[in-house]
């Protein structure tokens, strides 16, 4: 492992903005390592997943080994080592959501996207996951698309949700 702890944005896998944020983040806590879990999540938000380069840079910034970073990262269910879709649809099927039809919603997403459980569309736009309780039990069945909550979904609402994000992608393409 490199002993170079310099945090120059030029060699970073992160955008200058995120690199600057991380420079500040490690100084915020009484112990540098406390920045590890947030840093991994924020890195994933930008890069899409925890690539080897992400793990290496986070390890260097915190001053621990890559193995230690992986050891921690594998514990947390939101962290992933493979890319997900641009929009990761997470359907909660835990008890409160299940009682109000979450599995029907989950199945409808599979039909609508043409993927199986935990599948992804070939264009890389959508991935689909069944997740544990997301803290929206009174507004069940609930899902999250990346960090956005959608509450009280019926199976017939599913095409609309998918469409909303498809349109977002089309608009991004137009503006690009």
């Amino acid at each position, binding site marked *: 492992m490199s002993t170079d702890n310099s945090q120059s944005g030029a060699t970073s896998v992160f955008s200058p903005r995120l690199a600057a944020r991380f420079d500040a983040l490690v100084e915020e806590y009484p112990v540098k390592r406390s920045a590890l879990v947030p840093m991994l999540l924020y890195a994933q938000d930008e890069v899409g997943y925890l690539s080897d380069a992400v793990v290496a840079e986070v390890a260097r910034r915190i001053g621990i080994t890559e193995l230690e970073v992986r050891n921690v990262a594998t514990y947390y269910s939101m962290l992933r080592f493979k890319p997900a879709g641009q929009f990761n649809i997470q359907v909660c099927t835990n008890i409160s959501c299940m009682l109000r039809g979450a599995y029907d919603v989950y199945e409808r997403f599979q039909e609508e996207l043409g993927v199986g459980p935990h599948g992804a569309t070939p264009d890389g736009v959508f991935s689909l996951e069944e997740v544990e309780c997301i803290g929206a*039990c*009174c507004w069940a069945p609930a899902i999250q698309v990346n960090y956005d909550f959608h*509450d009280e979904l019926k199976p017939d609402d599913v095409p609309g949700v998918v469409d909303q994000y498809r349109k977002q992608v089309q608009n991004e393409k137009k503006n690009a």
Partner: protein
Amino acid sequence: MPRLVSHPDEVRIVSRRFGQGAEKIDRYLELGGYEALKKCLAQDSDWIINEMKASNLRGRGGAGFSTGMKWSFVPKQSAKAKYILVNGDESEPGTCKDHLIFLHDPHSVIEGTIIAGLAVGAKMGFIYLRGEYRYLLEITERAVADAYARGFLGKNICGSGKEFEIITQTGAGAYEVGEESALMESLEGKRGVPRIKPPFPAVVGLYGGPTVINNAETIATVPHVFHMGAAAYAAVGTPRNGGTRLFSVSGHVERPGVYELPMGYNLKKIIYEVAGGIRGGRNLKAVVPGGSSTPVLLPEEIDIGMDFDQVGKAGSMLGSGGVVVIDDRTCIVEFALRTISFYAHESCGWCIPCREGTDWLKKSLTRFHAGFGAPSDIDNMQYLAENMLGRTFCPLGDAAAMPTIAFLKKFRKEFEDHLNGKPCPFAREGVPQLTVV
């Protein structure tokens, strides 16, 4: 935006600023915000702790321990820095109250954290939110920045010469991190596995320093205790159970939602009056009274007051206040399987009885629900669950075992109805039987 509900029986203390724009500091101040902090700044730490004890406020995370007592366990003198740690890792299935607190009233959490700091002599607090609550973290971060800008946080809070810092923290998906010692591990940048107790966090906690860990609802309640006065707050509830509780009512009711009701409010009334009864005029089959880890209650067992002591006497727990209502079309075996699948998924693997126990219960229930159970499975599952109880570092093992035992005991007949390859009597037409990955 999550839907807000209301009912005339509600006593709005913690939720009184919901839906009023109090996430903005000016509005929070208009609504009496930071007055409790100023009151506490004029007093010494013993007075604050004694008021908390007198309020009979008990921990809203689930264990129901006296908040004032917890604060009093922190040593006055400590070579190491002391910390306040707010547990906003809300992940008990059936519970979504902290979601609304952070959304509508993040300053109440900040104010409560500072008061806790004054009480125990801590100069730094952490507010830890589960990773899925990103939009709530952003709201809370803005609130913290505003509190610094207005001098409620920093080196000289309200000109008192006292200092207090707050750092917000995100998790990254882990139920287990809601357990207090695992929460500290996560905040230290490690896997969220529990620590053995003793030593308790009040003596050796975060970074080895004395640490108070309180649930977000508990902390959000603290300013209201000082606003109302401890005696007035205690008077709202039942003996030894001060104040109100945010009940997350979900499942098969007409009007699911988070309702703030006095401690000791009748469970039957919560379901049939406050939440509007069973959806579609169906019949009640069972109620999980305090989040998925609490033992299920039968319809004849729900004429009880919802406080820690009365629900305990009825053989269950008030837990996190997540009331999950189940109607008569629901398969309890399927419900038990979904419950245990969650605990199997979330077991951190540190303690063998939990790691193996949850996995074997899930396997047994999966097979059982598919109609391939053996008659001996019922007793075996109960034996397995009973042998998980009390044999793990943290309560996750118990949280999985307790509901399992209750399902098996109270719905044995329904388990037996699944034997001998019979199809699930509750299978929905056209929907394949649940197979949990």
